[in-house]
């Protein structure tokens, strides 16, 4: 008993140094050398300012931008408090939130059912993507607001659409931030 207690103390100390300190530091070193951009969050720079991470979503509200999904991370897309809504399927708050969002969106596209991901909050609150269907739904608004042809906007959407990984894993998806940045680079934002 006493012997095992002593071993437990030393064992905790030695393994903490090995697995709690040396291991993560070694991985950090390797990651910074092998994949410097990815290890630091794939930050995007424009005019010497960091404007976002390629894989963290942002809120967009103007009609000339593609909008992201609703977010429950803080006041919306706050990476210091990532979270889903955690609203249950029969929770009034969920049903009413979706109803009001659907109404707003259908005023742009009357009578077209809204792709479900566009009115549901993601698990992280930081989803960088929308489905191609949700992007297609927004093309008329964005094109009209920017005075562009719908087909030109559609071409840009396709450019920022990733297919399934290896052709079969996951779902096709549109990167909202990169798409909006490219739209802005075509002309000054509205």
């Amino acid at each position, binding site marked *: 008993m006493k*012997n*095992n207690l002593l*071993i*437990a*103390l030393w*064992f905790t100390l030695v*393994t*903490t140094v090995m*697995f*709690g*300190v040396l*291991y993560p530091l070694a*991985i*950090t070193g*390797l*990651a910074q050398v*092998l994949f410097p951009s990815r290890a630091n*969050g794939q*930050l995007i720079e424009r005019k010497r300012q*960091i*404007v*976002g*991470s390629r*894989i*963290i979503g942002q809120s967009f509200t*103007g009609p000339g931008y593609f909008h992201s999904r609703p977010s429950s991370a803080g*006041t*919306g897309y706050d*990476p*210091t*408090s*990532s*979270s*889903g809504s955690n*609203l*249950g*399927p*029969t*929770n009034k708050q969920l049903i009413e939130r*979706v109803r009001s969002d659907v109404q707003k969106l259908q005023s742009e596209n009357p009578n077209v*059912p*809204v*792709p479900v*991901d566009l*009115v*549901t909050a*993601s*698990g*992280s*609150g930081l*989803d960088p*993507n929308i489905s191609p269907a949700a992007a297609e739904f927004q093309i008329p608004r964005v094109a009209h607001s920017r005075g562009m042809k719908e087909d030109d906007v559609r071409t840009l959407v396709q450019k920022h659409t990733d297919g*399934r*990984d290896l052709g*079969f*894993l996951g*779902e*096709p998806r549109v990167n909202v931030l990169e798409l909006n*940045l490219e739209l802005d680079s075509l002309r000054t*934002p509205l």
Partner: protein
Amino acid sequence: MTANGWFQIGLYLVVIVLITKPMGVFMTRVFNREKTFLDPIFRPIEKLIYRLTGVDEKREMRWTEYAVAMLLFSGVSMAVLYVIERTQKWLPLNPQKFANVDPALAFGTAASFTTNTNWQAYSGESTMSYFTQMAGLAYHNFVSAAVGIVLAIVVIRGIARKETDKLGNFWVDTTRCLLWVLLPICVVGSLVFVSQGVVQNLKPYTTVQLIEPHTVQVTGTDSKTTTQTVTQQVIAQGPVASQEVIKEFGTNGGGFFGANSAHPFENPTPFSNFFQMVLIFAIPSGLTYTLGRMTGSQRHGWAVWAAMAFLFLVGVTTVYWAEAKGNPLLAGTDQHASASQSGGNMEGKEVRFGIANSTLFATATTDASCGAVNSQHDSFTPIGGMVPLINIMLGEVVFGGVGAGLYGIFVFVVLAVFIAGLMVGRTPEYLGKKIESYDVKMAMLAVLILTFTILTFSAVSVVKPYGTSSISNPGPHGLSQILYAYVSSTGNNGSALGGLNVNTMWYNTTTAVAQLLGRFFMIIPVLAIAGSLAKKKIVPASAGTFPVTGGLFSGLLVSTILIVGALTFFPALSLGPILEHLLMNAGKVF
């Protein structure tokens, strides 16, 4: 449900089948102290650890000493984690200057990570310093996993050895598990994750200038609503990849960030997601092969595997069906799957994973005692959310946690052969060992303590204001939230119906107690059975011996698991998710 979705689920099962034998053979060699190709690297480190800590690697222990060593190690390392949390303000690597964690939360978290539960009543990105995450939490991801695995090995030795009271040396088994089994895959795996976009740095959080500032309504503490303009986004960073890999490989499940594997920095791509799911089942599935190999009955190992795979398939089919069908209450939305969207119930799910990968992950993480989530189970449809709950209720024996799944199913195997013995009127036998009254009593003790813990705490929580005031989803879903909290804690899973506010005195304390009971009152009876079996003589199999191989045995095992689970939990389930399902389809909201 789509063909592509089914293809991914099928492929996942195929990959698990393929890695079962190599993992099983490798673990057998490691714990039998046979030669492996990693010896030149790890043998010197192993010897160094024994010299520094004073371990005599030749000495073997009885089950009681093994249990004492395990408890002492858990106790000491849990205390160290508590101290790290309570002093992180003064420790290094705290770029965000987080305060010390308050006592109830620090205790709850220490219990949770020591017991391999990784239940989290906090969000990592706003609570824990990098040092606490690395040296406290990620460290426990390693050691709690190793402890689970070596206990499963002891159970296997108990079956395989005869007429001895020696079952191995806890310190030697743990060291070899950490070095040979866990570390190599963690090193390679964390780099795979970084290549996919999981971050790994020690930098302060990054401030981003938004290209479109926007206004938000904020309700202050005085409940007045004010309008604020948001011009910046602060992106949380950290040494995530090194923790991510052991989070899954050790079936721990505690996220670096609050959103866990839904967070793009923890799980950026469908490929990283697939890899996470494979890591979750890798060791538990491999251990069934180790069981067969060490006991000399490979077909028994596969019979156990088949029972697990069957329950896995039933589970994943049900969740996938329920979630793909969607939520009938969301009027005006298009929930149909098509080439341009996954459709279904997308609340709480990420676009890159869609329905198929969210439901597959939810099934795997609750079959195993992992508890990592890539979607929020609280927002699942009632039936979709009931399956994860049932998976944990059944004792997480469908592959199960690392080690915990194997010693968990061992309890049900003992009960199954006991029932078979009753039916044919003979003393039950299991791989040449007579199963006697002591063994069956210990097995039932494990089952009863877990059940008692879950039902008692849940019952108190649903009638007392300090329990019900934490509910965030009213109606039958509120019962599901509370039930899930104690099922997950006692089962050492750690996933949650996250809306329930568990960072309160009541929930922090009771979930911690449930986790400790669930871990150690499972382990000790199981060790006692292992000790008892090891002492017995081998009885040669005769015509009257119930075979523990083949479809009949797998079927009996599945039935035993389902009957015990259903008898215990059906009443609670019918008032929670089943009632909610009926009301949802009737158009009722709360």
